[in-house]
């Protein structure tokens, strides 16, 4: 037992690998939130009238809303007036090529292992790097432009394609949807915009790296992905954040629209700063992600690996509006030390013959609390719809918690709905078996955990699958109770 505890300690002691920060001269708004700040943000970003109105409406609505408390997480009350709502790295001059990117910023990416040149050359992935809310460098734009794919920062989209933004913004997540989406709609600073025209299969995987940089800056990303008829895109989002003592709020909104026969695959590896061993600091990750399978035979899949953040609160959802549409949710959520995660999905079956699959794997270690909360709703006209849900939890240590709160609401008799959940720990027999064959304790745990998550990792794009396995390894190898 002692050796196990030592191992456990050793591994849970691992400091956050990506904890560092660099001074970049930030162009920040004063703390606090009021109409002036919103006008300031909008003005700063030279936004058209409709967007300012959208923000103001959202802000008005937000003021009437109460912070939700139903999630299974505990944290001190957030003072929304104590947050800087806008900060941008000062552009030294208009950037023409990668070489002109702030060298400090380039150095930061190098440390993160996201060397843009490298990325460009080897992986063929276009990277839209978002640092502190403003997009600084975009690559592979040309290649994408050839096939008509628009992939740019949200601000650029507002300038160059306002008609598309106006047409789709807020149609999946309305500004008044929930407290944090309303806040985001009022103050979002930047994000990504992606448009795949009719019949186009996006020639590469799109990837965005988010990173919080300036202290006490809330991040309010806004992502909008539109896939027109018969198009396909795989979108990757990954993040690491520097170590901070003060909690940082991250309230992003992601909207996906899929028209007839379109297929959108959205993958996330989330590794925000989780706070230290005592649970100090760490990111509050309150995200609204939702896709709408608007067209017939359309498909949206969410795959997420959540290992970071002090608090994760997100439910990537799919509205299955079109007939025969498909929604998928694959998730691995890991909580260690004092991390809390309340995550899951919503599958709303509206169209006929719609199908959804939910595979959720929760891993709790240390004093982590991990909740799966999901809703499967079958409306009256959604005949012959089908859902399969599986939620498994793995507990490592006796101070952690794993919770499963599924809601199934079915109003159609031809629906076939199944939900299964189980909770277990890594058994001593399993460890013994592996060790007997020469694996170290930590390799054994890592292998078992990776096996536990296999169903989800299979759905990740190659690059992410590797990164995700590494992340899990770093986060909890060897911790066996």
């Amino acid at each position, binding site marked *: 037992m002692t050796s196990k505890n030592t191992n456990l300690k050793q591994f849970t002691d691992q400091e956050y690998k990506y904890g560092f920060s660099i001074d970049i001269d930030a162009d920040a708004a004063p703390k606090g939130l009021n109409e002036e700040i919103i006008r300031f943000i909008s003005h700063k970003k030279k936004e058209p009238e409709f967007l300012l109105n959208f923000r103001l409406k959202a802000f008005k609505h937000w003021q009437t809303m109460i912070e939700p408390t139903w999630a299974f997480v505990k944290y001190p009350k957030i003072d929304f007036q104590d947050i800087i709502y806008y900060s941008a790295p000062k552009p030294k001059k208009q950037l023409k090529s990668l070489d002109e990117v702030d060298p400090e910023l380039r150095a930061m990416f190098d440390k993160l292992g996201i060397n843009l040149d490298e990325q460009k050359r080897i992986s063929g992935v276009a990277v839209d790097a978002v640092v502190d809310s403003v997009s600084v460098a975009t690559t592979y734009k040309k290649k994408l432009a050839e096939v008509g794919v628009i992939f740019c920062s949200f601000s650029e989209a507002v300038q160059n394609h306002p008609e598309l933004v106006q047409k789709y913004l807020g149609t999946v997540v309305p500004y008044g949807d929930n407290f944090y989406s309303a806040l985001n709609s009022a103050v979002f600073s930047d994000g990504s915009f992606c448009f795949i025209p009719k019949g186009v299969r996006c020639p590469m995987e799109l990837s965005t790296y988010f990173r919080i940089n300036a202290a006490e800056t809330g991040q309010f990303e806004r992502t909008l992905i539109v896939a027109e008829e018969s198009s396909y895109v795989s979108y990757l989002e990954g993040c690491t954040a520097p170590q901070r003592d003060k909690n940082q709020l991250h309230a992003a909104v992601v909207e996906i629209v899929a028209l007839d026969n379109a297929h959108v695959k959205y993958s996330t590896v989330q590794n925000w700063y989780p706070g230290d061993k005592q649970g100090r600091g760490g990111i509050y990750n309150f995200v609204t992600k939702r896709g709408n399978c608007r067209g017939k035979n359309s498909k949206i899949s969410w795959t997420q690996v959540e290992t970071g953040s002090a608090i994760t609160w997100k439910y990537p959802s799919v509205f299955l509006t079109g007939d025969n549409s498909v929604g998928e949710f694959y998730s691995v959520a890991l909580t260690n030390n004092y991390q809390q995660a309340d995550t899951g999905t919503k599958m709303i079956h509206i169209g006929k013959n719609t199908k959804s699959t939910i595979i959720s794997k929760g891993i709790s270690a240390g004093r982590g609390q991990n909740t799966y909360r999901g809703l499967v709703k079958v409306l009256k006209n959604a005949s012959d719809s089908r859902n399969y849900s599986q939620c498994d939890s793995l507990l490592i240590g*006796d101070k952690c*918690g794993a919770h499963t709160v599924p809601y199934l*609401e079915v109003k159609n*008799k031809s*629906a*076939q*709905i*199944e939900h299964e959940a189980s909770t277990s720990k890594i058994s001593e027999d399993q460890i013994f078996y592996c060790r007997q064959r020469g694996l170290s304790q930590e390799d054994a745990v890592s292998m078992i955990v990776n096996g536990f998550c296999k169903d989800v990792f299979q759905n990740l794009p190659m690059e992410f699958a590797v990164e995700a396995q590494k992340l899990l390894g770093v986060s909890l190898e060897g911790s066996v109770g």
Partner: protein
Amino acid sequence: MLVFKKEEFLNTFKQKGWPSIKDERWKYTSLKELSAEKFDGPNNTSSFNFNSYLEGLNFLKSYLVFIDGRLNINLSRQPQDGGVYFSSINELINNNDTEILKKITRFNNQRTLNYLNAGQLTDGVLIKINSQVKEPIGLIFITTQKNIQSHIRNLIEVEAQAKVKILECYKGFDQTYFNNILTSVYLNNESSLELYKIQEESTRSYHISSLEVFQEANSHFESHLHTFGGKLTRNEIAVSFNASGSRAELFGLYAASGTQHVDNTTFIDHAVSDCQSEELYKGILDAKAHGVFSGEVLVRENAQKTDARQKNKNLLLSEEAHIDTKPQLKIYADDVKCAHGATIGQLDKAAVFYLRSRGIDEAQANIILTRAFAVEMLEKIKDEKMKEYFDKTLQNWFNHQTLH
């Protein structure tokens, strides 16, 4: 001295008010209609002939009959077994039995309907079991009056190593009324209770029941709850394990049609180590019926070696029937085995076709398959006579339905 003050409880209830659907525990069951109804307390009972209501219960050697919420000793067959002690709750209150007053006023104060129950208390029964009682005891509740409310408070105490089977039956004339039942069960070390309940209330009535079970070391609790009646039914069962080595089994069947609403809400508190719980609830929903299942299993920090299983299966027979199910696990210990599952589906078309191809008409085929779905719940009943009786009530339900 402890005095039972109904007014105070009623005032507390008025302050707290009816549970609303904003309360997570009542998310799918609205009491709006019920709270708007006007009910009187029951009058003294007129003399009906209750024989037809008691006929099927002849297999019971002893039973207590409650008419409109009040114990009617003349209609009852008093238990002859020396290990059984019983008394009407009203009598105990009138005698100022302090120990009992303490017990009946000690209830979950989060649950506002408990205050209504205490504030409007009609009657109820205290049953104490001191030995291993072989013959099952019946508690028969019959409502005869229109627009009345009965608030029933029962206490069942099973002493160490004692054992008993109790059957609760609820029936009523076809009219509007409201039954609000609160039952507390205390199971001492190594004791055992099999609690059977058949609810065949009028489909115009409201039936809300709450059962709290407190289990000491190595005790065993088994519940078979079959719901057929009621316009609105809410059955709550909360089991707390106070000491290790105990086992609780909750089995439920609900069959509803018309515009019936049936809610089964369970909560199992694994507060200590080495306890087992198993739940299986099956629902058959026809016409415009609405079924709700909400099961919560809490495994506390030190409740290692817990084995908790929970299942809810539903059969939707018509376009307009619907089900909301919410099986929840909250687990704070690592060395546990916990699983839950929920399914919602319809009759297998291939199976219906198979039967039809053998000359059985569709309606009959539906009944055969639906019955097959329900039979699993009968098979969970070990007591043969009890099983037979439950089978009869199930058959009775089918006889009154034209399945869609």
